[in-house]
């Protein structure tokens, strides 16, 4: 193997220019080997140097032993979507090492576990062998921990090679372990230093990649979407959480429970202002949340696709009987069990219409931790305001990966508790009709069980009913009520978060997406402009039903590409159901459904092909 990158050989000539703050690091390990900590520390170190960064964890659906990849993308422009290609590899997993090296970009670099002997595989790549086991021994006398500590060694090696600031890395590491585990932190720091030293002595820099300080991350936080949503629920004042474990939504419920215990238990009495039940299944989970919502709690459940399917019947009840409940769907790849540790927007259409008969449900589509935080709050407000199930469709990419974000802002508005009549109201009014449209907004008034007034009681049912909640099989009662429900749904448009639009007045082409497709969409806009001279506008819908911005956006463009992370174009389908045929005629479809976070190149290629440019 040659000694200098200038001497790299290969099919394609490889640039030898310095690449600063614009490349991807891929760490290939095995599941359960504890590499998560090392990877987070590495990512955080770059982040703390002010360089925009994103991390994607690609893990298998088992607990230990199968291949796992973590990709860190550093990008000075702030692109934080997935990039298909990676430039810098850390190859720790014998099972995938060969393929991992093969996929490395020409001109890339690979740190690898020396015994794997990968350096003969390619000529156009820089190799850095590291004898991890040998280095781990002295650092970590306890054999049991060595497997974990080994990973910290590559942090030291990589940091040295890329020029990452070791002070920042130490800070990141200390933070990661937290104040209670400082002994473990020191052990691991020893491993980092061992890696650093080994690299200093044995691995002269031969690749092109550098991290240099910037100031683009100041004040920002790093957090995963599920934790962000959990915090949103906390600050929304959630009082009842009923859930059933399922990847990737368990990691929303679990931090939520921790924060509830931390923030919502009276220090002295030990009394809780919340109730959490791990239910026996998803039917019970949503059923309890609906029971709680009916009785006035800010109630929620969180789940993923299979759970939604099981909740279908109950969701229809909540729609028809008008009961508030928040359902956070952290989407994973379906159909069926599908790829439970991969990401997809596979329930976009599904959730909007879930349950038999005529049902329609609002959905919020967060794209970032900030929106996970704010939309969780919106969801509770909307559910109680509209007395209906509200979906928050997030996904595994957003929920389980770490994202840079602005610190969340404390809610300025009070909790919206909707049209609930108290005993005093009833005294004043004399009585009420549960399903009457008093205010012309199709939203009726309700009372909570336990309201201390003889006129408070009413009977909730999933069967046909009159305005006064009496049983009815009459044609007119049924139609009137269904019409009111339809009007109520349209009313949502007044309260849903507005779509995010960026219109380029010169653009004839628009891009439209929801949720996490945002990152690929925005980066693709730049690719289209730079590579093909195609100027584009963009719109990200933030809720269903769609606001007026969508129609306006379509009207301003000749063609609008609807980006879907699913096979059947589910966002496009929803648009078809709601928009005039004239507008639908302008829509084109870009779909990806391989289970990885969407990347810009995929979007760009699809648009280039359809534009014929």
């Amino acid at each position, binding site marked *: 193997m040659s000694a200098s990158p200038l001497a790299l050989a290969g099919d394609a000539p490889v640039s030898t220019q310095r690449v600063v703050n614009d490349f991807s690091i891929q760490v290939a390990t095995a599941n359960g080997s504890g590499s998560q900590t090392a990877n987070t520390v590495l990512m955080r170190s770059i982040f703390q140097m002010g360089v925009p960064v994103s991390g994607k964890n690609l893990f298998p659906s088992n607990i230990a032993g199968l291949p796992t990849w973590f990709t860190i993308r550093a990008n000075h422009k702030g692109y934080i979507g997935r990039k298909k290609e990676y430039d810098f590899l850390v190859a720790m997993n014998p099972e995938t090492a060969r393929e991992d090296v093969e996929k490395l970009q020409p001109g890339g670099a690979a740190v690898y576990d020396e015994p794997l002997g990968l350096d003969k595989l390619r000529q156009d790549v820089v190799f850095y062998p590291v004898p991890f086991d040998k280095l781990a021994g002295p650092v970590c006398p306890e054999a049991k921990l060595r497997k974990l500590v080994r990973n910290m060694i590559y942090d030291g090696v990589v940091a040295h090679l890329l020029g990452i600031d070791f002070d920042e890395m130490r800070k990141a590491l200390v933070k990661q372990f937290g104040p209670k585990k400082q002994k473990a932190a020191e052990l691991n720091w020893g491993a980092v230093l061992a890696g650093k030293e080994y690299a200093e002595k044995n691995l002269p820099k031969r690749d092109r990649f550098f991290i240099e300080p910037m100031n683009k991350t100041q*004040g*920002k936080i*790093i957090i995963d979407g599920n934790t962000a949503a959990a*915090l949103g629920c*906390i*600050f929304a*004042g*959630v*009082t*009842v959480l*009923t859930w059933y474990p399922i990847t990737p939504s368990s990691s929303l419920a679990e931090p939520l429970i921790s*924060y509830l215990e931390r923030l*919502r*238990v009276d220090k002295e*009495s030990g*009394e*809780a*202002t919340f*109730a*959490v*039940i791990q*239910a*026996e*299944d998803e*039917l*019970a989970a949503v*059923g*309890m949340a*609906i*029971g*709680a*919502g*009916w*009785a*006035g*709690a*800010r*109630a929620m459940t969180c789940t993923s696709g299979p759970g939604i399917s099981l909740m279908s*019947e109950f969701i229809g*009840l909540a729609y028809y*009987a008008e009961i508030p409940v928040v359902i956070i769907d952290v989407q994973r790849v379906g159909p069926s069990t599908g790829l439970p540790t991969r990401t997809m927007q596979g329930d976009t259409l599904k959730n909007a219409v879930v349950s038999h008969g005529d049902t329609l449900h609002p959905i919020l589509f967060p794209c970032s931790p900030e929106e996970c935080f704010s939309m969780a709050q919106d969801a509770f407000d909307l559910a109680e305001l509209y007395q209906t199930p509200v979906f928050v469709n997030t996904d595994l990419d957003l929920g389980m990966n770490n994202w840079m974000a602005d*610190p*969340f802002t*404390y*809610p300025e508005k009070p*909790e919206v508790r909707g049209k609930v009549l108290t005993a005093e109201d009833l005294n004043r009014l004399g009585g009420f009709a549960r399903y009457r449209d008093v205010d012309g907004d199709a939203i009726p008034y309700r009372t*909570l*069980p*336990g*309201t201390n*007034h*003889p006129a*408070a*009681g*009413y*009977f*909730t*049912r*999933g069967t046909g009913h009159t305005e006064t909640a009496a*049983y009815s099989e009459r044609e007119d009662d049924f139609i009137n009520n269904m019409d009111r429900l339809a009007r109520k749904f349209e009313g949502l448009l007044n309260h849903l978060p507005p779509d995010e639009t960026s219109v380029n007045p010169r653009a004839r082409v628009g891009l439209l997406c929801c949720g996490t497709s945002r990152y690929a969409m925005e980066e693709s806009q730049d690719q289209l402009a730079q590579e093909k001279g195609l100027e584009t506008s963009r719109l990200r819908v933030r809720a269903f039903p769609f606001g007026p911005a969508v129609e306006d956006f379509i009207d301003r463009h000749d063609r609008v590409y609807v980006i879907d992370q699913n096979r059947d174009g589910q966002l496009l389908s929803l648009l078809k159901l709601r928009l005039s045929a004239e507008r639908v005629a302008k829509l084109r479809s870009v779909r990806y459904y391989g289970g990885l976070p969407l990347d810009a190149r995929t979007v760009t290629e699809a648009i280039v092909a359809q534009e014929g440019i």
Partner: protein
Amino acid sequence: MSAVETPAPAPKKTNRLGFEIIQYRGGKTTLCAGCGHNAITERIIEACFEMDVQPWQVAKMSGIGCSSKTPAYFLGQSHGFNGVHGRAAATATGALLANKHLKCIVVSGDGDTASIGLGHFMHMLRRNPPLIYIIENNGVYGLTKGQFSATADVGSRLKSGTLNTLPPIDCCLIAIEMGATLVARSFSGDKKQLSVILKACLAHNGLAVVDVISPCTTFNDHDGSTKSYAYMKDHEEPIHELGWIPSYEDIHVEIEEGASQEVEMHDGSRLLIHKLEHDYDPTDKVRAIKYLHEASQRKEVLTGILYVDRGKQTLIEQLRLVGQPLATLPERLTRPPREALEKIMDEYR
């Protein structure tokens, strides 16, 4: 004189809340004439009246079925929630979480509870939510026209002649095993027993399960049915006679040594038990289970309060909920302060 004959209460027009019994009635029943469920409805009305239940504190919960319709026929001033088939355990538990002060009365059918809802029923039992769960058990799906449910006995026959070959689910047995803290069986035709049982349930703080054999006159009251009025007349075996002394009545009762027992309920009322089956002890779980098994092998339908456990924590206690209902907590108690968010943000910086 038997210990269980409590002094006959003077016929009263209003209860201690000042309510007449009519305030405990509901809409007109739409069930068939003679349906056992209607009789149970009557007993619920009486028990709530006599126990001075505040109707506005009651939440009536049910699934789907003829039985599940009945909450519309009692306590018309209370909130009611007739949900989906087999899932009242979930909605009732949820309602209690939101408001722990609710007096939750669930009415379900044998199909609702023991067929489609069995899983939820059992998991509810484990949690011991403080509510009353009544199973109006007729061995068939009344509302869908009389197919066998999971409580139908082996060897019982439909009108059409179809034979049931599957062993029945005994909801009381399961309830005792899985953790309910008051478990009773009765018969819709046994006014006196059912009344006392319902009162005991109302006084109990914990999950009270009552399996009431309630003949379906339309589909399961013929020869060959083991849930008919005639069959129950022949096979009902009360394990004791029950009497009731309300908490506010200060009456001393002579307890006949051995055969009788006085149990103080959570609200201070006293349940008087005059044993008919002498070795039956409703506080001994394992023995109760064994006894029920043996009785069912003898084709006896044991009725009475089969099991009581007054010591176990309720779900509400386990969760250590604050005094005020979660539903109406003010924002200042549910939304942590600004500083809390800032502190957390710092941790993620």
